[in-house]
């Protein structure tokens, strides 16, 4: 082992770098991570059960007790329901598309379709919500369309209700389902499907016994990617729900920005995060059981 001029230690095939610069290179990132990720999250956990009188901290359970009210619990349950609903619906609607893209589409068409699928990830999602204003409003295009077909005599109420909220949530989050599904399905060897069919399985058997079990990782990823943001949504119910429907995000936003009550907001954030983590754990267990079956 020889120590070189620049503090470089060469030992067998491994390179190790030991110089005074490594400290300055490593510290900013770690400091940033600690200051703006670990400390804030820790602070929220702390504030949920501690308040300050001057500089003396006082531990109390009253914030959690306050949050454990029926009104708040009801919102959490409603958000769980909305999250599960959006995730399941996007699974059913997104799976055929992912399957089609993975097994049947080739070359340039595939690239174009994938590009169109990735695009919503990188465009402002407020714009996607705004786009539905034109479809759903009272004199919007959906009403016009149904009217011209003669299905309806007078405009339906499509805006500022639960229908609008769930539709726009589905619209915003369905790419998060299709993309992981596609990634997993694409890796499945098509010869497996041929083998299954050659050995006498019907196409539905092939799907449920071969393809679906192999794609379970993608299903799980997509499910969680859709479930988590729809659980914590607050923009969509605010903008297309007419402020009548509150999800977890709406309450967090209300407590922090309107009521300006840090402690209650922190307690509610912690409570809903715990429930979110528990439900993700449940989803994992559920899907894993399916694999074993």
């Amino acid at each position, binding site marked *: 082992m020889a120590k070189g001029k*620049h503090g*470089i230690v*060469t030992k067998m*095939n491994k*390179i*190790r*770098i030991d110089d005074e*610069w*490594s400290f300055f*290179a*490593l510290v*900013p*990132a770690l400091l*940033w*991570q600690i200051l*703006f990720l670990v400390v*804030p*999250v820790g*602070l*929220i956990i702390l*504030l949920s059960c501690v308040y300050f009188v001057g500089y003396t901290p006082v531990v109390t359970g009253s914030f959690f007790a306050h949050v454990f009210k029926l009104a708040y619990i009801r919102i959490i349950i409603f958000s769980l329901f909305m999250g599960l609903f959006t995730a399941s619906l996007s699974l059913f*609607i997104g799976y*055929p*598309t992912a399957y089609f893209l993975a097994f*049947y589409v080739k070359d340039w068409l595939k*690239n174009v*379709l994938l*590009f*169109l699928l*990735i*695009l919503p990830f*990188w*465009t402002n*999602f*407020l*714009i*996607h919500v*705004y*786009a*539905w*204003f*034109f*479809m759903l*409003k009272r*004199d919007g*295009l959906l009403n016009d369309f149904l009217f011209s077909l003669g299905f309806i005599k007078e405009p339906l109420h499509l805006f500022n209700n639960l229908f609008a909220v769930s539709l726009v949530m589905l619209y915003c989050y369905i*790419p998060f389902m299709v993309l992981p599904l596609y990634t997993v399905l694409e890796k499945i060897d098509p010869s497996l499907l041929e083998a299954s*069919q050659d050995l006498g399985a019907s*196409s539905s058997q092939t799907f449920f016994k071969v393809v679906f079990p192999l794609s379970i990782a993608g299903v799980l990823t997509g499910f969680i990617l859709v479930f*988590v943001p729809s659980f*914590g949504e607050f923009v969509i119910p*605010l*903008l297309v729900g007419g402020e009548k429907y509150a999800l977890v995000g709406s309450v*967090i936003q209300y407590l*922090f*920005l309107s009521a300006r009550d*840090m402690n209650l*907001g*922190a307690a509610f954030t912690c409570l809903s*995060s715990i429930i979110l983590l528990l439900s993700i754990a449940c989803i994992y267990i559920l899907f894993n059981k399916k694999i074993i079956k």
Partner: protein
Amino acid sequence: MKNKGLSAYILPCATGALYCFLYIPICILIIFSFNSVAFPSKWVSFSLRWYEALVQDPEIWFVTFNSLIIALSSVFLSLVIGVCFVFYASFKRWRYAISTFYANLMIPEIILAVSLLGLFSFFSVPLSITTVIMGHTVLGLGYVVPIVYTRLQELDKSILEASLDLGASIHQTFFFIVLPFLMPALVVSGLLVFIISLDDFLIAFFCAGPSAQTLSIYVFSMMRIGINPTLNALSTIMLVFSSAIVFVFTLLRSRIRIF
């Protein structure tokens, strides 16, 4: 494999329906930005008057300027901090330290935003553009560190050894060998952070405060008022801009395969 009923009709129809669902509202939004009359009336004639109104609005320029400052600063900060960190940490074999940066993207964004707001108001830091940059850099590190680390893993270690053996200092090695090798990953992750920061709403909404409006917050407050053709024009420009960046991004990605 050949199942005519399913493969020939249902799957393409389902796919087509999904793509229509995804893109018809966007197309209509774009079409209405070129209509000469405001929304409730139908298509009248082609006009660019909303784009003219948009260009003449000083507030739009102000918020765009804010957003660009935030985005460029976050890109710069997360690239510099991230690359230095990855380079040294990977030689020190600090796998765990690197893998903590995956948490930045896994934590729900609203929780990150609220926590940052809690931090800033707890220590009475005034909310401004700076606080938004701090938040976006946290997100940015979550993209830069994993992408750059993945790319660095592909660098042949013997090249580094050769460079060091032949007398180059560690900084020369870094600037003449490692950095050029990492360049595609830097471009890709920089683009990603840029577009994420430009499009981000949640962190800006919670951490910007009343004085520092960003593009997303401006769009949000206009949406709360209702339909406004100027907003269609703005949305169209933002969509075109994002699509162009994604296009460059996908080209680069297929060229260098870093994922």
